[in-house]
């Protein structure tokens, strides 16, 4: 299959979704769908390190907020346009990813996870004490006028986030099918054996953490324009850590499809629950579903479907 093929399919799906939403005409749906697409991006990015390589990163909020605050800074300093914000957010996230990549030299398993969690706390403390970007009380960001063809800016942001999500899934798809993905899987299964079988484990781990960090940073870059009030508590929200881990686990961590399935299902359930029941229920839903999956279908939905399919055909 050609490398651009999944990207084009993803774009077509996105376009159909966009036209449907336009037909419905309710602005709230763009708002809600943006969050779901953002989770597709976050879950996919997380999975490149957590699912493919086997290093569980609890620091998603650190990368996401770093992307968001890089954008805030560039808006304040230069009124930089959105594409610049996205690239810059990605680069800074990628740099942080490279940093945690070197952590993997000494920290494995749960110790690595704890370190990434601490990273989020440290960064949040720094931002809280940095007045220029709003400190603890946050900062107001004014949206630019919406581009032609779009009736409002959120509609435009929805499409931007959609393209980013499709691009990230394409990257994951490509990694999974390439020699890089096979090397990452070997590292996940047994790092020592992988190294002894010729896999340059450090190089591949650095690649995984950098790509994952880049995409997590990218996800945060449009955030200031989406919320318009950026404050540390929401940018460093623990929800990002929990969801970006739970969504691939529920969908299935070994394929690109897993995070997408998990993000769409769980993200939609959360959005529906927020409107119909209460916004506090989100984490409870995630928790219950995650526990259920870990017990009943540890390979996630994709794994479960494959197993059933195999038994049917065998």
């Amino acid at each position, binding site marked *: 299959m050609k490398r651009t093929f999944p990207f084009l399919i993803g774009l077509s799906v996105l376009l159909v979704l966009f036209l449907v939403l336009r037909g419905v005409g309710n602005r709230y749906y763009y708002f809600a769908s943006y969050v779901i697409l953002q989770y597709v991006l976050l879950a996919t990015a997380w999975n490149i390190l957590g699912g493919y390589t086997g290093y569980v990163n609890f620091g998603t909020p650190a990368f996401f907020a770093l992307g968001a605050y890089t954008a805030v800074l560039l808006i304040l300093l230069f009124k930089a346009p959105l594409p610049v914000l996205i690239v810059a957010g990605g680069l800074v996230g990628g740099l942080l990813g490279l940093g945690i990549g070197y952590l993997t030299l000494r920290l494995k398993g749960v110790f690595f996870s704890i370190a990434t969690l601490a990273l989020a706390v440290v960064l949040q403390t720094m931002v809280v004490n940095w007045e220029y970007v709003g400190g603890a009380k946050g900062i107001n960001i004014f949206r630019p006028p919406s581009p032609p063809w779009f009736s409002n800016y959120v509609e435009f942001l929805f499409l931007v986030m959609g393209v980013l999500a499709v691009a990230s899934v394409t990257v994951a798809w490509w990694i999974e099918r390439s*020699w890089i993905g096979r090397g990452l899987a070997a590292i996940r299964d047994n790092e020592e054996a992988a190294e002894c*079988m010729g896999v340059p484990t450090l190089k591949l781990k650095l690649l995984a953490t950098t790509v994952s960090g880049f995409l997590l940073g990218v996800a945060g870059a449009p955030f200031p324009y989406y919320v318009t009030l950026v404050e540390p508590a929401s940018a460093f929200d623990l929800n990002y850590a929990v969801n970006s881990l739970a969504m691939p686990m529920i969908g299935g961590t070994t394929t690109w499809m897993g995070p997408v399935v998990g993000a769409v299902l769980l993200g939609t359930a959360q959005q529906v629950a927020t409107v119909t029941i209460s916004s506090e229920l989100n984490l409870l839903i995630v928790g219950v579903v995650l526990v259920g999956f870990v017990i009943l279908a540890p390979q996630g939905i994709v794994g479960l479907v494959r197993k059933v399919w195999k038994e049917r055909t065998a």
Partner: protein
Amino acid sequence: MSGFLLEVRNVTKRFGGFTALNTVSLQVKEGERFGLIGPNGSGKTTLINCISGALRNDGGQILFRGRDIAALPAHQRTRLGIARSFQIPKPFASMTVLQNLCIPLEYAANPTSHGADVPAEAMEILRLIGLHAKAHAMSVGLNQIEMRKLELARAMAARPKLLISDEGMAGLSSGEVDDILNLLFKLNEGGITIVMIEHIMRAVMRFSERIVVLDAGEKIAEGTPDEVVNNKAVEKAYLGE
């Protein structure tokens, strides 16, 4: 040039205050069947880890084909031609048997090309080892002897010049030991130098042309199997005074 395929010169390895290897030297000739024995905790696996790159030696030199490799990471040593099997099998659990072999074929044997013939080559090795019937089985579902064969096959897939078998027969029945021994003889005839670490004396005595004995991190004897068996120091190390 030293003329040896592998030359270990005065290698020392310490873990904190404990000296696991104390100025150990040995030489392995090209095409040789070499045995490394010693009581539990004598430093055999530590030495193997230093040679394969899983550990860095604190002193001394390790030369492979005349080149000092002590500074190279493990994966580069594998690409140069040193492959090992693990004492406790470490299969890639999420992969099939065939896929397990594709990793070293792709990364060690053909690291620049990432060629497309890899599955066919893997199948060929599985046939040689006698594991082709299980090619598409998940590696975690294998039994003990199959797991050992997979370890060997995977090491072979790195296309090594030197194969280090770290207790590749532990826990096998005597018929299965013969199975693995015959395999190793076959690989050796194919031109691969083999270093065997083994507790099963019957196997290592039959297999090796030359043996080095370690005890408490030091080399205490070296020679043909007969010489080693009749060596007083070896007897003392194994049986006491």
